[in-house]
């Protein structure tokens, strides 16, 4: 069942006298329980799209519905259905403790049993050690955890996270991704924007690649990789590359065989067939490196630019 539906969405605004076309006709359906990724470089329109979904922005044209509520006609109900983390650690009050922040936002979301919900979140996200200290004394990771807890305070059916790991170190980033995965496993729909491809590959069921306000492609990670047309590459370090290269050219579905500095690079073909051919040639296999096509190539192919640009 569709939980977020976006039809023919346009957003233009004026900045320093110029008209900026942030979204150029977005059509999108996100299913209930899905982990949906929005992948794109800075300025692609990801945040604008999220701000339209959460009613922070009024679109120039188009329709958005969340949990069956129309974003233009029933904005309060849409907001009540979404937990959103946009500005990360700056989305909470630093002069308050983590618990006071959760209590305040719980009240603004009209949560009846706030204390119980706060205790549940403290336990779920392991906030016990710092929740009663003022946020200004927290590390960046601790602030993000509390900001994430604030996102979950109303136990919403949809959560939207805008580059939540961008300021975190590796460990804190991993912990947060684990927590998000757990929430999704429990049935919450997650919309996740990032420009980090490994996050998309690790987390997302489906991904939309967005650039210049347009969705360039929308598929599963594997489906997107197929778009690039690239195949798996196997690099074999061998004692006699020439002999093996010749043998591999006859293996079924192998598309390309080349020799590089004492190694043979094979594109396409089934891994077991390639290994059989190497072993039966009697040549010593010193090392093997298998690399899959990545989303960076897909992105480059679709947009003509790299994600970090």
């Amino acid at each position, binding site marked *: 069942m569709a939980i977020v539906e976006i039809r023919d969405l346009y957003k233009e605004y004026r900045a320093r006298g110029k008209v900026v076309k942030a979204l150029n006709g977005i059509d999108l359906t996100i299913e209930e329980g899905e982990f949906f990724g929005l992948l794109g470089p800075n300025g692609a329109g990801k945040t604008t799209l999220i701000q339209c979904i959460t009613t922070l922005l009024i679109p120039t044209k188009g329709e958005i519905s969340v949990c069956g509520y129309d974003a233009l006609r029933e904005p309060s109900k849409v907001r009540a259905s979404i937990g959103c983390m946009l*500005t990360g650690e*700056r989305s909470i*009050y630093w002069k*308050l403790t983590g618990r006071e922040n959760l*209590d*305040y936002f719980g009240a*603004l979301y009209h949560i009846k049993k706030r204390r119980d919900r706060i205790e549940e979140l403290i336990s779920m996200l392991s906030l016990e050690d710092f929740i009663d200290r003022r946020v200004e004394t927290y590390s960046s990771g601790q602030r993000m955890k509390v900001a994430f807890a604030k996102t979950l305070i109303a136990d919403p059916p949809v959560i939207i996270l805008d580059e939540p790991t961008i300021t975190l170190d590796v460990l804190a980033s991993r912990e947060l991704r684990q927590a998000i995965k757990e929430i999704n496993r429990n049935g919450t729909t997650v919309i996740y924007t990032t420009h980090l491809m490994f996050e998309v590959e690790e987390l997302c069921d489906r991904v939309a690649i967005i650039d210049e306000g347009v969705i360039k492609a929308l598929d599963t990670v594997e489906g997107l990789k197929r778009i690039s047309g690239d195949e798996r590459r196997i690099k074999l370090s061998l004692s006699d590359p020439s002999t093996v290269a010749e043998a591999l050219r006859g293996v079924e579905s192998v598309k390309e065989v080349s020799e590089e500095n004492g190694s043979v690079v094979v594109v396409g073909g089934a891994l077991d067939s390639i290994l059989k051919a190497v072993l039966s040639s009697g040549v010593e296999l010193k090392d093997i490196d298998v690399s899959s096509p990545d989303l960076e190539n897909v992105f480059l192919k679709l947009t003509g630019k790299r994600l970090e640009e």
Partner: protein
Amino acid sequence: MSWTGVMAAFRVKIKESLRYRGYWISDLGFTFLMALLPIMIGRGGDIDAFEALTGTGNYYGYMLLGACTFMAIDAPLWQMGNWFRREQQIGTLQSIYLTPDGSMEALGGLALFCLFRSCIIAGIPFATGFVWFGLEPSRGIILALAFFIVGFIPVCGLSLFIGALVLRLKETGALLNTLQMSFGLLMGMWVQVSLFPVAVRAVSYSLPMTWVASGVRASIMGMPYLFGSWESDFIALLMHSIIMPVLGAMVFLYVEKRVKMNSGVGSF
């Protein structure tokens, strides 16, 4: 919109104010200064001339009440206007706008906080001044309080204009400072409004603070009311209480919608 949200926003403001060192002390000190400056400057002046101009010979009381009313009624305007800017800058405005009715509840809590703050920062200097200068209220404190409390409603309405201005223009510090002192003058903090030229007086009468300041002074010090009796002044203030919040809300919601149609409330 829920009362729970309003009260939560009120509690947050109280906690925040207590955690900024010197917040209350400096606010209280400022009110004392606002009263003491004109008092010290005007000491030894011609009381008869002052009485002829204002209708009271109680110069100390006049200035003290003017300063306290200014701080109690005029200052919340800027508190509420600046709230948007501050929340934008620290990054929490979007968080509030992401909640179902958060912006209205947060504003409600802020209005309550401003009322509480006004009672403290005006009440203490007011009581101190009365004891210090040996002043005697000739009429009712209760009527003065009624002017003050009722006057708070249109001031909150007017503050929505300021909020709209801040949302629209963003960088408004200098403009707000100028407006603040202009409002102080126009509401008759230092000079009786009746002495203004007709056009300026008309502007003064359109500000709810003018009616509060005049009503409080007249009730306590036995000065003439702007329209001759407390009943007519009170009705004028009640009219402000009805019109100003409605107008303020209309303007604010219009500007808020325009901002959302452009680049949004969170950007600065």
